[in-house]
Every structure is written in C-alpha cells, then in structure tokens.
C-alpha cells in the first residue's frame, strides 16, 4: 500500500487538523527563530543599548580660563555667580491653591470623602489666604534680596509665564495635529484632549541670572524659608579692568590745553572699555558652535568633554574669540545609575589661561589720552587757520571728537604693549547700544582701527623708501637730490613737493642746497623720495614694501587683521612708474594699518631684523633679516631725530594762530625721541539719504593725521615705537604729535623709560 497522508490518516478532518497544527508550528518556529536572533545572536548589542538607558549623564559646566596682561593682572575671568530660579507653579501662584487643597484634605482626612464639592472648596478657600500671603512675602523678600522693584520682579514673572504659554500652545497644537492624523473622527479630538502639562509647567524658571556671590547668599537664606525657590551656580565672565580711572597730568600738554580743569591739578579720566577690542567678549551659542565641537565626533565616536550645550556662552572677537579652544576647558560629568542611584563624578578641567603682552595700565593711559574729553583728540581752534583758504575742506567745529588708533610696540621683543582704538566701548554698551556701535560710520567703534582698518601710509613711509633705495643700490647715500618743487619739470601740477604746494617754494630754495638723506627726511621733501622711488622702479618698490610686511598679516590671533595692500592699482589701471613715484611718499596703491607702521619702524630700529609683532605672550617669536644697508639705517635714524628734535623738522613745531610756537615733544631728560609726521589722504564719509540720492551730507572730509615716534634712553638705541593715526585730523603732527608725546609720558609713568 502506498504511504500517503490519506492512507495514514483516513479522516480528512484529522488531516486538516494536522495541517493547521503544522501551520501553527511553523509560525511558532518563525517567532522563536526571531526571538533567538534577538536574544542570542544580537543579545549583547541589545543588552548594551538597554543598559545605556539605565545610566543618565549630566554634564557640569566648564570653567573658562583667564586672560592676563603682561604683568599678570586678570583682564577676564569666570566668577562664581548664581541663577535664581522659581518653580512655574509658584510663579503662576497655582501653588497656593494646591497647597491649600492638600492641607484641607489632610486636616479633614476622615470627613473628606463624605464632603461634596462646594464644602471641599469652602475648606480650601479658608486656607488659601495664608498660602497666598506666604507667596506675597516671598516675592517681597526676593525683590529685596535681588535689589529689584516689585514691578521689575512682576515683569520677569509675566515674561516667564508668557514664554511658557507660547511654547505650550505650539506643542499642544502639534500634538493635536498628530492625534487628528491618527484617529478617524477629527471632531472627537479637541485641544483639551492633548493639553497634558509639559516639562516647562513643572520646572523652575530663571528670575535672575548671573547674580553675584553676596546676592546668592541672601537668596540662599530665602530658599530654606519659601517653596519652589532654587539657586543654581552659574559662571559669569568678569572683566575687572573693563573700566579704569586714569589720572592725566596736563603739565606737558600743548600750552592751550595745559591748564587743568578748575580746582584739580590733574584730571581724572574714566576710561570705559579698556582693551575691549583686544580682549573681546562673549556671545550666545550658535548652531555652528555645536557643529564645530559636537558631544560625540560622528566619525571617530570620541566624546569631546569641551562640547557645547544650549545656554553655553562662547568667546566672541578678540582673544576670547580666537583662543576659544584654549580658554574653554572641559566639562565635568556626573554619571547616575538610575536604578541604583549610584553616581560617578568626573571633575571639570578649567580652561587654560592666556597671557597678553599688553600692559593694561599703559593701555588705559593711552585710551585716556585719546579720550576727546581730555582735549588732545578733539578739534581745537589752533588745529586750523581762522579763515579757510579756498579749495580746502571746511574744518570741523571746535570740540568735535576725533577718533583714531595708537600702537605701542617694544622694539627688542616685538611685543605690543598697548593697542588702542577709539572710541572703545564696554560689553554692557554692546548689549544695550549695539546698533550705534556697529553702524555709526564716523565712530566705527567696533572696528579695531589699529589692526583692521586700511590707511594710506603717507610720509611716515619715507624712511622705508630711503633704506630700500640705498640697500638695493638704486641710490647712493652720498648723492644729493635737488628739490625742484615738482617732480616732472614741465608739469607743475603733478608730483609736487608739499612745500611747493603750500608756500610755492622749494626745499633747495629754502636751504640753498640740494638735499642729502637725513635732511630730506627731516623736512619730508617729496621730490627726494619721488626720485628714490622712481630710481627703484615700481616692481622694486612693491617688493620692498612687501618685505617690510605690507600685504601680509601678523597672525596675532585677533580677528580681522587687515593685511595691507601694495601694488594693486584701481581697476582699469596698470601698475606704472607713476605708481612707483606716488608710493615713494606713501600714496598711490598702498594701504596699511598703524600696527604695520609701528612694525616697520621697529624693523628699521633693529637694523633690518624683522620680528613679528605679538600680542599673546606664548606666541613663538618669528624673525627674519632684511639685510639693510647700515649707512642708510643710520641716515634714516638721524633724519627721524632731526625731524622731531631740530627746528626745521616737520615734526618739531606746533604753531598757533597767534604766531607763537612750541615744540611738539617736550623735553624729557634722558630720553631721545625720533619721529615722523604723515598725512594720509582719506575718503570722505558721506551720509546719503536713501530716499533722495542727491541729498548727500559730508560727515567727514580731509586727511588722516599720522605720527610715528621711536623713543629710547639718550645715547642708547630706541626701545619703543609709538604709532598714532587720528582720522580726519588734518595734515602734519598737530593732533597726532601731541598724543604721541603724551604716550611717551605714559611709558615714563608706567616705568618703561
């Protein structure tokens, strides 16, 4: 007999039962197989994932490193401060009702189930005023502890309620949409169905942030007394030298400014925003920060303990911005095993400190001298002739503030001792008055003018041209150049000497001889330097400018360094010999910054050794030798000495409208001063009315005023370079010169000379 299901199981029903059972067995086997796959084959992975959920990680904040000045003074540090937070239910005062209800239930525990709603409510209402009074007392005490008025506190409470309400509505709307998607009958789902309390309704919210230790201490006593009040530590960045008081001694000021204000021999100047441009500030977290340093590197899986989290502050601008990774430090981590409550704590690692080469006391003095209220950086009657000659820009009204920048560089080390840009600002003002700081075209407060703004070099470039021409053999130091008034014999309207333009004469005519190097520099003869530059040729001029660092940055670690440009004529023009001639006096296609100016003079003072300026102490020194002709260097130094120390020097004399005159650089015993004035042609600042293109108001016009000074002990080499530029302050040394002179005084006062 053939064996088949039919012969083994004659009943078809029983065969079908077997079929069903085998089907069930098959399904069971599939399920068991998948269970096996999950539990045994992939068990470890799943167990790890499940165990990871038992552990919660809490990251504690980092402590940011300090920024110190060259003498170790703390310019920026994290200070212990506190956030005062209050539970939402206390802010909304729901707490009073629920607390009263809780007490009513407890006090009438036995009777409670038998009471109806109205009776219960009556009991609650009787207890309610007491709890409301508790809250009132709490808000009053808190306002006092925080030094706020009741109205201010009320405003903060309503701000929290408003934010939470807005956020809750958004979330509930989303939930409602999702729920409606999920069920058949839209009309069955209403907002009430999804109005579950959010975490924000349970949590506490900040009423005051970043309060100081003593306020925190006062609030901590209230925490024990009142419900729902919390105090949480939070870091606050403090800038102890942000505002400094500086005494300005007017004894060596130009004589019209010398008289101190009535009743005070010295003037106390409050300097707001000392070194703000250098130090920088903090800003709120941006998405890019989180992307830059995520908690876990997506490629390597490495956990970065310095990662960013919401509410973190990030360094912005200056050292705070550029040294963010050094300063930031690493978070601590608290790992809690949620099932056992066991905690593992990894302490945070404070960020590294950054020490600057800047002397904050000197910096403050420089900024004080450049404060318009002192008078040196404000338009004075003797800055301009009483009657404006035809064709000259209208002078600014007397007392108009002048803005600019100053750099003090130590020659031996290349370290920047001070770098001021006016006007400066405090970080509070940046918060309150950002619009003014960022968009006022005349003040351009947020620009670090010492480092980020291009200026044509003007005549202060002349020593560089002299040394370059001699060092490259284009000009023999001993050969004299005749000042002819204008460089091209047949073109008295082009390439003129300043003395020809202003007085219709020539230096050769005035002195009775052709000019040699020191003298040409001292009188700042344009013809001499046109000649040298044209002998060098345009390529060599550009090459030498670049060798001195124009066109390359310093890598200081501050933002927006302007690298300088040279040899890039305006569009449509080819670089030509006439550009070379113009560049011989620092005009034409060349622009740089006050720091470039100081750096070039320092290189000349070191005999051709270029030492890269530094603002961070730990930055490695970088040096290169330009192999300059020593004779030319000596001649240049002598020219710079004559310029400010000899009567005929362009940087020597301050002339007043009444005909009186006095030297710009007051006699300082034991010191030698070298220097050069300069005038830089500047673009006008215009105020255009967007609705009426024809209505253009000139806000500023005229030239920037340069002065570069080197100073050292008498008989010794120069030790410090001071470069000053004052915007739209007119030609020559009238404004920049006295400021440079006072900065020498500041160096003396701070013990550097």
């Amino acid at each position: 007999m053939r064996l088949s299901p039919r012969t083994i199981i004659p009943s078809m029903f029983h065969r079908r039962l077997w079929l069903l059972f085998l089907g069930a067995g098959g399904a069971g086997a599939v399920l068991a197989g998948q269970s096996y796959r999950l539990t045994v084959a992939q068990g470890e992975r799943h167990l790890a994932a499940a165990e990871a959920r038992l552990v919660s990680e809490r990251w504690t904040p980092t402590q940011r490193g300090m920024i110190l000045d060259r003498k170790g003074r703390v310019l920026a540090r994290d200070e212990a401060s506190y956030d005062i937070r209050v539970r939402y239910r206390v802010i909304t005062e729901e707490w009073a009702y629920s607390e009263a209800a809780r007490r009513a239930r407890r006090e009438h525990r036995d009777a409670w189930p038998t009471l109806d709603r109205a009776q219960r409510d009556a009991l609650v209402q009787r207890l309610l005023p007491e709890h409301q009074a508790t809250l009132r007392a709490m808000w009053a005490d808190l306002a006092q502890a925080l030094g706020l008025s009741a109205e201010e506190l009320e405003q903060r409470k309503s701000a929290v309620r408003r934010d939470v309400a807005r956020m809750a509505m958004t979330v509930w709307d989303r939930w409602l949409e999702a729920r409606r998607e999920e069920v058949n009958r839209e009309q069955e789902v209403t907002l009430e169905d999804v109005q579950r309390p959010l975490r924000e309704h349970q949590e506490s919210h900040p009423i005051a942030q970043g309060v100081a230790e003593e306020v925190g201490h006062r609030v901590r006593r209230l925490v024990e007394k009142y419900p729902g009040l919390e105090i949480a530590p939070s870091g606050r960045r403090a800038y102890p030298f942000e505002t400094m008081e500086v005494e300005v001694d007017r004894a060596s000021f130009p004589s019209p400014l010398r008289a101190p204000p009535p009743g005070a021999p010295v003037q106390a100047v409050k300097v707001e925003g000392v070194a703000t441009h250098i130090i920088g500030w903090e800003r709120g977290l941006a998405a890019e920060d989180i992307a830059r340093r995520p908690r876990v590197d997506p490629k390597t899986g490495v956990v970065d303990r310095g990662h960013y989290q919401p509410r973190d502050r990030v360094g912005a601008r200056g050292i705070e911005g550029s040294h963010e990774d050094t300063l930031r430090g690493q978070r601590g981590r608290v790992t809690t095993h949620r099932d056992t409550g066991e905690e593992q704590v990894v302490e945070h690692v404070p960020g590294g400190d950054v020490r600057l080469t800047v002397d904050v006391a000197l910096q403050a003095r420089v900024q004080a001298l450049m404060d318009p209220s002192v008078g040196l950086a404000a338009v004075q009657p003797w800055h301009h002739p009483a009657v404006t000659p035809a064709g000259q820009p209208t002078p600014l009204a007397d007392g108009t503030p002048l803005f600019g920048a100053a750099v003090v560089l130590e020659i031996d080390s290349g370290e920047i001792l001070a770098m001021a840009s006016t006007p400066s600002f405090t970080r509070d003002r940046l918060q309150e008055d950002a619009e003014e700081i960022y968009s006022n075209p005349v003040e351009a407060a947020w620009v670090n003018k010492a480092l980020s703004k291009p200026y044509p070099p003007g005549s202060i470039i002349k020593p560089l041209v002299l040394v370059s021409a001699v060092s490259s053999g284009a000009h023999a130091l001993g050969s004299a150049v005749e000042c002819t008034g204008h460089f091209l014999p047949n073109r008295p309207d082009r390439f003129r000497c300043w003395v020809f333009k202003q007085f219709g004469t020539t230096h050769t005519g005035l002195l009775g001889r052709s000019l040699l190097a020191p003298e040409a520099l001292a009188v700042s003869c344009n013809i001499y330097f046109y000649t040298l530059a044209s002998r060098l040729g345009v390529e060599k001029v550009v090459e030498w400018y670049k060798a001195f660092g124009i066109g390359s940055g310093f890598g200081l670690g501050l933002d927006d360094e302007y690298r300088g440009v040279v040899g890039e004529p305006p569009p449509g023009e080819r670089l030509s010999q006439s550009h070379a001639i113009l560049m011989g006096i620092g005009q034409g296609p060349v622009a740089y910054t006050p720091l470039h100016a100081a750096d070039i003079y320092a290189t000349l003072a070191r005999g051709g050794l270029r030492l890269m300026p530094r603002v961070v102490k730990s930055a490695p020194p970088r040096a290169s030798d330009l192999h300059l002709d020593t004779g030319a260097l000596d001649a240049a130094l002598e020219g710079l000495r004559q310029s400010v120390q000899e009567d005929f020097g362009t940087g020597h004399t301050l002339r007043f409208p009444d005909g009186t005159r006095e030297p710009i650089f007051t006699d300082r015993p034991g010191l030698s001063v070298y220097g050069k004035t300069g005038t830089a042609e500047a673009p006008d600042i215009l105020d255009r009315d967007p609705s009426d293109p024809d209505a253009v108001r000139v806000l500023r016009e005229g030239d920037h005023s340069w002065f570069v000074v080197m100073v050292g002990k008498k008989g010794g080499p120069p030790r410090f370079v001071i470069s000053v530029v004052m915007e739209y302050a007119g030609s020559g040394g009238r404004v920049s010169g006295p400021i440079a002179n006072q900065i020498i005084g500041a160096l003396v006062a701070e013990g550097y000379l």
Partner: protein
Amino acid sequence: MSARGGRARKARPVLHQRRTTLLHAGWVVLGCAAVLCVIGLHCIELARGGAAGGQGTGLAATTMRQAAFGGLGLLAALAVSLPHYRVLIPLRWLILAGVVGLLVFVLVPVVPDSLVTPRNGARRWINLGPVDFQPSELAKIAYVIATAAYLRYRSNYRTLAGLIPPGIIAFVPMGLILVEPDLGTALLFIPALVAMLVAAGARLAHLIGAASLGLVFAAGVIAVSLVFAQRGEYPVLRAYQVDRIRAVVDRARGEQGHDEGRGFQGLQAMTLIGAGGVDGHPTARSAALVKYSSLPEGHNDMIFAVVVNRFGMVGAAGVIGLYLAMFGASMLVAAACKDPFGRLLVVGLASMTFTQVVINIGMNVGLLPITGMTLPFVSYGGSSLVAGFIGVGLICSVAMRRPPYLWRHSFEYDPRDDDEG
C-alpha cells in the same frame, strides 16, 4: 473512557445517552492558559511595579485587578463549560445579534461619553462603573460560534460561491470593529474563518487562491500607501499605519533610522527582548531595564518584550511552546469530537487565539507592524482575559462531552462522495 463508573456504564450501556468525561485534552488547554496567566501577572507586576518606582509594599493595583479578572475568567470558563455546548446552536443568531448590537452601540454618536468614553479617539469600550468592557472581545467568540454553526452540515463551501456566506457573516462584526477603529482585532476574523474552512474541508486550492488574492490586495494597498506617503499623501492607510509598516520594511532592509518616531515602540521592544539574552535577568534588574527603556504599553501589547527580558530566550521558547501546546491540545479536542459544530467551534476558537498570539509576538520581535493587540492570557486587560477564558471554557465544554455510543458516523466531507475526487 469515562472516569467515573465506567464499569457500571458498561454493565448498562445507554447507547444514546450523552456522556461526559474528565479525562480530556481540555485540561491541557486550561493548564496552559493558567500558566500563561501567572506569567502575565508576574510580568505585569514587573512592568507596573517598576513604573511605580517600587515604592510601597504589596502588588501594584494593576496586578491585583488582573488577578481578579483571572479568577473571574476561571469562573466564567467553569460556567461556560457546564452546559452542553450544543445549546449554543439555537442561540447562535441571538448571540451574534447581541454582540453586533453592542458593537453598534459603542459607535452610536448619541451614546453619552460617560458610557462610551473615547480613548485616543477610538470608541471601543463600554464603561461599566469599576470595569470597562470591550465588546469586540465577545464578538470574536460570537463570530466563531455563528460560523461553526453555519458550516456544520454544509458542503457547499467546496464551491467558490459557497465561500461567500461565511465571508458575509465575518464581514458584519469585522466591519463594525474596523470603524471603531481597531484594525488589528478586525484582521483576526479572516484567519479564523480560513482555519474553520480548512477544517471543514474546503478546497485548499480555493483557500490558497483567495488568500493569494487577499495578499496581493494587501500588498497593493501597502505599496500604494508607501508610494503616496513619499508625496505626503495618505489616501488608504493613515500616516501612522504607513509609518509602522515602513518601520518593519526598513528594519528588514537593515536600516536603523527609527530610534525615534515611527519605529520607536518596536525598537524599544526589540531592544528589551534582545537584552533578555539566553536566560533573562532577576526581577529587580529586569524591572529596572523595563522601567528605563521607555517601552510604552509594557504591561499590555508589549508584554512579550517584558517576558523575554525577564526570562530570556528560555522564556520566549516557553511562552511560544505553551501557546503551541494549547493549540495542539485544542486540535486533539477537535479530533476527539465527533460533532461537526464542536469540531469547528474548537478549531475556530483555537485559531483565533493563536493568530492573535502570532501577530502580537510578531510585532514584538519586529517582524510585523505595530498594531494594538493583546497577547492572550498574558497581557493586562479584563475583557481580553475573561473572553480568553470563556473560549477555554467552550473548548473544555466540547472536550468533556463524549459522543453517545450510538452516534452516527461523524459528519465530515468525504472525498469519495465527490466525483471530482
């Protein structure tokens, strides 16, 4: 053989008398159900007790309720098994009509919310004071009774046209349950019908053909939904349903993009199951793993994950084995029964329960999309548990009746009657 006084019976055989026996496979069914129920209680306590933070002494209220329903279920099983199951035959339309009435009742919009409280937008429950009652659980049993009774003496289901009336019987409660909406429960009716048809002797070719058509249709619906979902449109299935299907499809393709959102529930369940390993974890540790896994419905639809986390692969195999034993024992009960109604009743009840098990475990282990469905006897839920025990009672009722000695040849389709062979 009869357990009591067999000899006496032998002496005076009453050939037409109805007989009962206590030695029957129904005990296995009951035993399996009871063991599963105990496992369920343990895991509900683990999932809920853990959720309550382990505070306080004694069992969680949920566990106590479930235990009470378990007792109630046993009583219901006893009550159902005592009368002869054949009394159901004349009552079948009454029962079906009553259940359909209840199903309509939950859907009628004028019924006050205090009586039918929509939960998550679905109207499935009737509020009976301390307990809620879910008519669809009873509908499953009523439907099996009605279908079994309909099919008992027929053979027209050998033809394709003959398959239509049982389909219509299925469609009425199914349609109503679909409207609630409860797609999962509605889907159980088709496998139960197919199983009863298989047992009754319908042509496998027809069933396979119909099943293939159904699968093609379902695949079409899913494919169309997936395609439209790419464009953000949901013409047939709802967005969350498409998401759940996509979660399974993506997982099958080895994509793990569903840590949050649509695959969340399924992923948590799979993680918990996998974490159980070979032999699971002690109660406290397992409770901690479950508590912090954020597994939703850990005491309910997703309880299989809790079971496997607690008892590991051993527990998974044990639970699946218990259900298989239960199904096998039911098949034995059916095999021993000569009465076509009894046979089909048992097959229908067992198949429906087992299908529910396969779907529930399937979604727990990530093979099937998530749909709201309990694991019979294990998951928390009064209606489900009591209905399950009523089913067991009915199976026992069939099991304990022995056929009278004078019983005609058991009715079944005999291919020798059929000229087609």
